[in-house]
């Protein structure tokens, strides 16, 4: 028998189910009180610092950060179920998304003691908002080709270059920036890269909007015009940047947000088939089955990560299958829908947002073409 690609199925413990209920009850109340209107792809498009701080007050932020650093000291699986409930409810989670998913775990793994104490408590309170600066105009899927350079200066490094697709940079406090600390060596393209913790209000930082085709502003170009970063804001060791971003991309690969970005639309479509706004069609069942199986697969990968098992290939599989499914849900509902403009119809509001956000699903965090290659390599094909 071949070794399965996916870690063994894990059943949800009662305590997790209870945690779900708590979060769900809170979210139902928030919607009822008008604190937010459920939406799709909220981890990119719905930014609400108040909501983020409210989550922190309830103990649902900084979940995997140890209590010593102001976090909750809970498990990845606990964070997993909280994340699922937030996405399923279409809650505004963009403000803390990057910090909660990547920055916190990365600081814990690579940061100095001083950095942990400086950032983790504020992240856990929802008061410090982070972005990520990996991509560049010409880098695309080929991260090793980044051109932002960090030059050694007295007491630190001076960063020059341009980062793109930094979501929320115009609202965030700081970001991780990947830069070349030594020139590109074609034979060892992944060497000579380092990450820096950059204050987005520092002199020399210029943030310009990249407006999306929906007309919304989520992404930014961040120009670093010789920004001075002190030595104590180097993440880990100089030269370890590639290893760090690879592991950060791993953190972000198989989470619930790779499956559930359009879940509110799927749920609305189910209601629409019940009340006749959409024709009944068996295809709905197929999509529900895939979401249910992906929920389980993603949970299994999280459990494997919790126990430090190797799950890179499985994580890539979750991302390819999940992000494809997110988009397929939008396309499926669209093929069932005759155009009828109606601002009051929740279905069409969600559908239109899903269609406009969809192209990003299978691009962000590594394109599906790149990830199929990762899977093929994991299977021994090259």
């Amino acid at each position, binding site marked *: 028998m071949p070794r399965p690609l996916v870690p063994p199925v894990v059943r949800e413990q009662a305590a997790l189910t209870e945690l779900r209920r708590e979060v769900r009850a809170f979210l139902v109340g928030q919607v009822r009180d008008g604190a937010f209107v459920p939406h799709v792809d909220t981890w990119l498009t719905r930014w609400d610092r108040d909501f983020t701080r409210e989550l922190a007050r309830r103990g649902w932020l900084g979940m995997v950060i140890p209590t010593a650093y102001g976090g909750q000291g809970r498990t990845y699986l606990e964070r997993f179920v909280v994340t699922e409930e937030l996405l399923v409810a279409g809650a505004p989670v963009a403000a803390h998304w990057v910090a909660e998913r990547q920055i916190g775990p990365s600081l814990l793994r690579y940061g100095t003691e001083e950095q942990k104490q400086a950032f983790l408590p504020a992240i856990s309170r929802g008061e410090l908002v982070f972005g990520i600066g990996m*991509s560049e105009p*010409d880098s*695309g*899927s*080929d991260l090793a080709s980044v051109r932002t350079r960090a030059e050694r200066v007295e007491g630190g490094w001076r960063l020059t270059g341009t980062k*793109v*697709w930094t979501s929320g940079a115009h609202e965030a406090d700081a970001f991780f920036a990947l830069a070349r600390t030594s020139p590109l060596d074609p034979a060892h393209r992944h060497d000579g890269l380092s990450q820096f913790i950059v204050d987005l209000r520092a002199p020399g930082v210029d943030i310009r909007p*990249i*407006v*999306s*085709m*929906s*007309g919304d502003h989520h*992404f930014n170009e961040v120009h670093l015009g010789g920004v001075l970063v002190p030595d104590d804001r180097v993440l880990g060791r100089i030269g370890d940047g590639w290893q760090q971003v690879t592991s950060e991309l791993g953190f972000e690969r198989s989470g619930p947000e790779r499956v559930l970005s359009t879940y509110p639309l799927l749920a609305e479509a189910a209601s629409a088939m019940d009340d006749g706004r959409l*024709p009944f*069609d068996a295809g709905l069942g197929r999509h529900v089955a895939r979401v249910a199986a992906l929920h389980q697969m993603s949970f299994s990968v999280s459990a494997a990560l919790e126990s430090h098992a190797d799950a890179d290939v499985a994580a890539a599989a979750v991302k390819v299958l999940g992000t494809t499914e997110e*988009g397929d849900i939008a*396309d499926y509902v*669209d*093929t*069932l*829908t*005759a*155009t*009828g*403009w*109606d*601002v009051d119809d929740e279905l069409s509001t969600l559908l*239109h947002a899903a*269609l*406009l956000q*969809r*192209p*990003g699903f*299978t*691009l*962000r965090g590594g*394109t*599906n*073409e790149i990830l*199929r290659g990762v899977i093929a390599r994991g299977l021994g094909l090259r």
Partner: protein
Amino acid sequence: MLTDVFDRYRSERPAPAATVDLDRALWARLESLGLTRLSTPEAAGGSGGTWLEAAALLSISAAAGAPIPVAEHDVLAAWLLAAAGLPHDGDLRTVCRPDPSGVAINVTWARDASAVVALWEDRDEWRVADVPVDRVVITEGRNLAGEPCDTVEFDLDDLEEGTVVDHEIGEQFHLRGALARSAQVVGAMERILEIVLVHAGEREQFGRPIGRFQAVQHLIADIAMETSLARAATDTAVARAAASDWRDPGMLFAVAVAKSCAGHAASVVVRGSHQVLGAIGTTLEHELHVLTRPILVRRSEFGSVHEWDETLATLAASAGRDRLWSLITTGRAGSRR
């Protein structure tokens, strides 16, 4: 001539934006060339073209992402007025089908029109009315493509005073609208193929143009193939319409095939083109969404993709084993053996 007009439009048009408004300068230019009433009979003040010319204009203008009411004003409104024997002063018109309470939703360009042509079904009769905009209430909206897409409320008296037309006009309206949308979808997809090919040849990743990667080649081949299939289906329906002036009883099948193929092709082309273009293709400043957003709007107008598939399934099941091939080749199943 058509190509020149729209090449010029593309070189001069405003930057892509989240919303688009009627381009009155372009419309005036088309008017001066006799292209705004291309398919209207000469006797009625039009250019007397056939559906072959109308479909070409629809495809080319859609390929340019030009915000003009070719389908609404010429192919549908002018035709309805001619069918009802009503005069057409040449001013911009849009078209809609109000519900029994006199309300029509999803009326593109209503705010820009001087009159709205309504096709109204009332107690088993179909009526056509040419209602000046000052007699309707317009609530402005925008569709997924950011185009003006308004709600129009009519005075029921205006509709009841409309001219009675044949039942077949009511049925043909849906077919003509659907085929116009197919021609627009296919034209936009053909332009997308161009954009994708240019990008794949220029954009480098891992030290070579992305068009050299087999995975990208296959995405693009799929875009090209689905577009071709939709083109073949649409042109077949257009040719049948032109040859018979829509009298061919196989029109329903032909239009359904075109709408189904164009609708499913849209899924492949929109997804694949955005995938090849990458993040840059999702930005407001890029041309791609000027094409992909209207494609998604148009494929769902005049019947969803699913509805047209259902229509075809019903026709096919009714034709059955022995008559399905006749349905496929002629659009008519013929009588049961």
